[in-house]
């Protein structure tokens, strides 16, 4: 790529496209080309039947050489589909591809003013003039390359973290797993069985841990925390602390897999007042220890603290956990009476719905209560669960031996701190907030940091694993390339003019601007690796220090002036 902005005065070539009859049928294309010829700095102007066709592109390339053009304007269709084609054509002719301006005289002119050919022609002329005036000020740009350190940091050593780490290590990159606890496994380390596959949780963890320990590319830091992480995509300096000792690592990409934990519903549903009122996780432990073997009846209550009681959200996996434990109880002691008090059963998909129907088939009872009137648990020597049975429209009561509360997952402690350290956001629910809910579920807006598992929000293990693999895949993009290519039309702060107010820092959606001390004063510095070229920072700048390349104030004002100076 040619990197230099031409020093010589602008020599602009204009190519006006007929697009068959699409433009030519309405707009007087030859007149537009002729008009362009008379504009300042234009040294060549022509019309083509199809500028995008092979002969049209050849025409551009030949003209660049023959007329020594240093900027090119094409007036045809829309840049959204055709800009890359023309940009690579001028690059082939030896020009920097950003010395190109696109004028849309089809979609936004000939096609929308079909019955007013004269006015359309006049409009096409002024649009071309706007393009030419902007083109005169265009500069060569480069998509800056940043080298990427070939190593990753996975924060959290649960199942998601281990799967993500293995995915990256498999591709030949160094991975550090940092786990706060003494052992790997996370939340799944505390449970018995994983549904709907009905596998022992311990075997899932030991399989993964074996693979992790066997990988020469993975270094496991248990009982450790990430003390500090500074830098940007490809270039993080990370301090991992274990006890009092710190190690320092250069990291290319970071995956947040810090997981979640079960909420303890203290003070709700008489939890804590009676040893026979448990959470699901506590029930699993008691089952493991054989403490519930003599129990004849169990009542489980769903949506404890969730869906508007204390937290706004639905914890997604509590229904499947409750049904799993109900089935396990019933399998062990077929005579046991298990009732699940629910509001909406959340068992989406194939495998989970099957587990739900299996549970019904076994005779596990499902009783529905309204969210507005949640069940009450009374420990009066015995246990009573009083609730409004919505299916029957009547008050109902169960006298179980054991009450199990299905409490939601909540974010791990330390999520806030990590969010500040990595400059990635948390949602209102306290879980990490992804770049785009729909299409970038595993990315953060900040490049180089990714997300998976229950750190993102409550979900089942299968989905967490899919996400972990997906996050590994995302992290492998900068790692495999060994570099990232930034946007070309990035923002740029002129240090001399900058007053260091930090307004731009506040508005940047990508945390791409830092306020740094230079020679005893603060100035804004744009990290062009992180800048996504939106230009939102520019209007925020009171001193005019901030500009966006390819959309500079002077370029835009030239276009505005072209319109205001247009003859009526």
């Amino acid at each position, binding site marked *: 790529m040619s990197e230099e902005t031409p020093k010589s005065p602008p020599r602009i070539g204009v190519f006006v496209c007929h697009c068959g009859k699409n433009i030519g049928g309405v707009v007087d294309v030859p007149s537009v080309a002729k008009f362009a010829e008379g504009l300042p700095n234009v040294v060549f102007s022509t019309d083509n039947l199809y500028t995008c066709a092979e002969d049209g592109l050849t025409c551009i390339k030949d003209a660049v050489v023959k007329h020594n053009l240093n900027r090119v304007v094409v007036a045809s269709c829309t840049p959204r589909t055709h800009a890359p084609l023309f940009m690579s054509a001028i690059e082939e002719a030896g020009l920097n591809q950003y010395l190109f301006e696109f004028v849309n005289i089809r979609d936004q002119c000939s096609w929308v003013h079909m019955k007013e050919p004269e006015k359309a022609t006049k409009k096409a002329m002024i649009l071309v003039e706007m393009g030419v005036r902007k083109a005169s000020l265009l500069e060569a740009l480069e998509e800056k390359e940043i080298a990427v350190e070939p190593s990753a940091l996975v924060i959290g050593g649960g199942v998601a973290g281990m799967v993500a780490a293995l995915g990256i290590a498999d591709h030949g990159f160094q991975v550090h797993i940092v786990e706060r606890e003494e052992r790997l496994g996370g939340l799944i380390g505390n449970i018995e069985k994983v549904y709907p596959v009905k596998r022992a949780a311990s075997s899932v963890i030991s399989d993964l841990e074996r693979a992790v320990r066997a990988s020469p590319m993975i270094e496991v830091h248990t009982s450790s925390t990430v003390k500090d992480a500074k830098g940007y995509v490809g270039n993080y300096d990370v301090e991992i602390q274990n006890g009092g000792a710190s190690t320092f690592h250069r990291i290319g990409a970071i995956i947040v897999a810090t997981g979640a934990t079960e909420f303890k519903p203290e003070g709700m549903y008489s939890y804590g007042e009676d040893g026979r009122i448990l959470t699901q996780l506590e029930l699993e432990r008691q089952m493991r220890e054989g403490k519930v073997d003599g129990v004849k009846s169990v009542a489980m209550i769903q949506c404890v603290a969730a869906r508007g009681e204390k937290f706004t959200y639905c914890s997604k996996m509590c229904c499947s956990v409750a049904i799993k434990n109900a089935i396990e109880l019933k399998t062990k002691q077929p005579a046991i009476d298990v009732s699940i008090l629910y509001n909406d059963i959340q068992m989406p998909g194939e495998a989970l719905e099957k587990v739900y129907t299996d549970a019904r088939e076994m005779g596990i009872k499902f009783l529905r209560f309204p969210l507005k009137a949640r069940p009450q648990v009374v420990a009066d020597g015995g246990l009573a669960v009083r609730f409004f049975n919505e299916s029957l429209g009547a008050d109902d009561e169960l006298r179980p031996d054991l009450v199990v509360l299905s409490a939601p997952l909540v974010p791990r402690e330390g999520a806030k701190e990590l969010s500040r350290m990595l400059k990635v956001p948390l949602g209102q629910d306290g879980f990490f907030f992804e770049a785009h809910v729909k299409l970038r579920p595993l990315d953060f807006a900040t490049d180089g940091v990714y997300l998976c598992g229950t750190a993102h929000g409550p979900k089942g293990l299968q989905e967490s694993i899919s996400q972990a693999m997906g996050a590994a895949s995302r992290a492998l993009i900068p790692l495999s390339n060994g570099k990232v290519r930034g946007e070309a039309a990035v923002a740029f702060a002129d240090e001399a003019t900058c007053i260091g107010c930090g307004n731009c820092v506040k508005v940047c959606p990508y945390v791409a601007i830092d306020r740094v001390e230079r020679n005893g004063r603060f100035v804004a510095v744009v990290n062009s690796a992180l800048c996504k070229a939106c*230009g939102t920072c520019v209007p925020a700048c009171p001193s005019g220090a901030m500009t966006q390349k390819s959309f500079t104030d002077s370029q835009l004002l030239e276009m505005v002036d072209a319109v205001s100076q247009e003859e009526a």
Partner: protein
Amino acid sequence: MADQFEPKILAFCCNWCSYAGADLAGVSRMQYPPNVRVVRVMCSGRIRPEAVFKALSNGIDGVLVLGCHIGDCHYLTGNHRTAKRMLVLEKLLDHLGVDPRRLKVDWISASEGEKFSRTITTFTEQIKKLGPANGGAHGRRG
């Protein structure tokens, strides 16, 4: 004569939504008045209120600032800024005696070709009614 008056209208469009909406209006051959001149920016958040102000004081009769719908911004929150900045600008215009109706901020998605064409049409009609801006002198509300 108001009928003879052909206003100069400038539309700032963001690349991802409103410009795409304008393209869709074209692909669908939705006709609208030819007075509008589009300036493409990557995000409506790039649009400097000062530039809008300058345009209005410099012979342009009406300015449209068109972005993605709130929540749809390709750059996450760029259009939130636009909304705030243009609100301030509207007040400023009012202060200065420039009819704030000469500025219209709207959100048009890539699928709203029809809305783009409708917006241009009604805005053009409105500016025709308001008459030439002429550096503010004619734009004053009576």
